[in-house]
């Protein structure tokens, strides 16, 4: 028996690579003064 057809689709799911690869600095000792700590 044939299956129901639905138009083929690609759904995009966003990544936040800066967060995912720990690009931010969490510890103030390591970061420069005044910089953001986007790691968390």
């Amino acid at each position, binding site marked *: 028996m044939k299956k129901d*057809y639905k138009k*083929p689709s*690609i759904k995009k799911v966003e990544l936040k690579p800066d967060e995912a690869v720990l690009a931010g600095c969490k510890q103030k000792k390591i970061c420069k003064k005044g910089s953001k700590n986007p790691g968390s």
Partner: protein
Amino acid sequence: MIYHKDDSFVARRLDEELILIPVRNKISDMNYIYILNEVGARIWELIDGLRDAKDIVRIIQEEYEPVEDLEADLLEFIADLEKIGAIRPSA
């Protein structure tokens, strides 16, 4: 036109759907992962560097209930897969 899968993607079936994860060595290229629906997942499976688009249309027509715009849908979907770098034209 014959296409093959780009081998920098990790693919995994999730029941009827399929997840595609591009593996990249530059953070600027790491922005999205992708979910293909059932028909999209089946088309992905059929792209093997040997079948051309007409072969894939024929197989989908055999497996699914008839629909008017099937060939146009398929070509649009293949173009979308190429746009995200998941498939490439075979030489």
